[in-house]
């Protein structure tokens, strides 16, 4: 008996066990049905399609820009939660905590820089993803609503970037938020009210720091996760990842699926 089959037997035994079956109901075996059930019956994976075509997941189709954006978002959530353990959103402690993270906390410099660079990269990737979608025409019917959700996610990304900018509480942060929040005063009629509510006062101060902290760490990430879930689910609902219908037949033949079953 070869090693592979023995390992397979062990895996099958675990997957067939009562405990495993109580968690994952799709059961043993690797038939198409079982593999489809594994996707369908998982609360996270059921957002995605059970079957995708090879040319949908080819690198050239999407350059994986959406997936990479999700990757930076996950890095930001994990590093962000860790940074929160050493950060007090108060004046002037916030600045000292930021410096402590850089020079006192073990791995603090690495985590802070990882958070910062991932944030820059995420903004870049969001735009790159949108350009790719736009130039391929992947925003067209029936995917136009998913494009709108993408716009909402773009705004959330920019707001996350903006609110995070104040948290180091240095001169750059202070004046950037002074300038940025004054932009909201330009809204007709209610501009100064929006400015007041955003900052929790008339100037960038302790209230503003705390409000931006709550927005940055709780409200905006929750909104982002919610819209990301809808965004992914809509990919399946809108017929899977977009593939150009005009692509040459020779490429379609390597798909491993019958052309007649092509999703239109």
């Amino acid at each position, binding site marked *: 008996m070869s090693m592979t089959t023995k390992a397979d037997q062990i895996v099958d035994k675990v997957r067939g066990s009562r405990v495993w079956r109580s968690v994952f109901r799709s059961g043993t075996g690797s038939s198409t049905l079982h593999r489809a059930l594994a996707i369908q019956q998982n609360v996270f994976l059921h957002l995605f399609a059970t079957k995708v075509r090879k040319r949908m997941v080819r690198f050239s189709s999407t350059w994986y820009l959406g997936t990479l954006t999700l990757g930076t978002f996950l890095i930001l959530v994990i590093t962000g939660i860790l940074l929160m353990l050493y950060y007090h959103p108060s004046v002037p402690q916030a600045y000292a905590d930021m410096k402590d993270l850089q020079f006192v906390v073990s791995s603090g410099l690495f985590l802070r820089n990882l958070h910062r660079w991932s944030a820059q990269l995420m903004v870049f990737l969001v735009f790159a993803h949108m350009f790719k979608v736009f130039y391929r025409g992947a925003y067209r019917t029936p995917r136009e609503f998913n494009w709108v959700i993408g716009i909402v996610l773009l705004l959330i990304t920019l707001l996350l970037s903006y609110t995070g900018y104040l948290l180091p509480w240095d001169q750059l942060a202070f*004046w950037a938020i*002074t*300038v940025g*929040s*004054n*932009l909201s005063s330009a809204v007709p009629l209610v501009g100064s009210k929006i400015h*007041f*509510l955003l900052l*929790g*006062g*008339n*100037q960038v*101060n*302790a*209230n503003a720091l705390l409000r931006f902290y709550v927005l940055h760490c709780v409200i905006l990430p929750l909104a982002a996760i919610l819209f990301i879930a809808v965004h992914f689910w809509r990919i399946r609902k809108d017929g899977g990842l977009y593939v150009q219908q005009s692509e040459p037949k020779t490429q379609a033949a390597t798909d491993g699926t019958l052309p007649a079953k092509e999703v239109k």
Partner: protein
Amino acid sequence: MTQKLPAEFDRRAFFTKIGLGSLGIAAAGTVVFTYEFLSPNVLFEPSAIVNVGKPENFAVNSVTMDVNSGIYLVRADEGFFALSAVCTHLGCLTAWNQDLGIIACPCHGSKFTRTGEKIEGPAPKPLPWLKTSVSDEGDLIVDRSIDIPPLQYLRI
């Protein structure tokens, strides 16, 4: 034989209206409640009224900046006046340049004269003149919350 009630007395429609109406009132209340909650009633911000000291501390034809309160106290030949140092563009703190005799903003390059008029840059309005008075003790008092028309010098 039962008589069918007219549509406007339909029990289901009546309760639907009551229910939606109550939800509407509750939603409006929630908006007001949230707005009130988000607007702080007490602010720990510096007072708008600033005591800048005795008039004789300022030389004739001098511009003195108070960085903490964001104002210029100018003593011209015509008298005293106070000018807001906060740029009317996007709220950066401007600075007085003694050599050039102008007020300049470091953020987006707006420039102003000593009396607050814009020379160049994106600022949409001149720097406002602020209400200036003399206290009983003879100190100069500037109220940053009250703008006055320009060229109203305080003569002592």
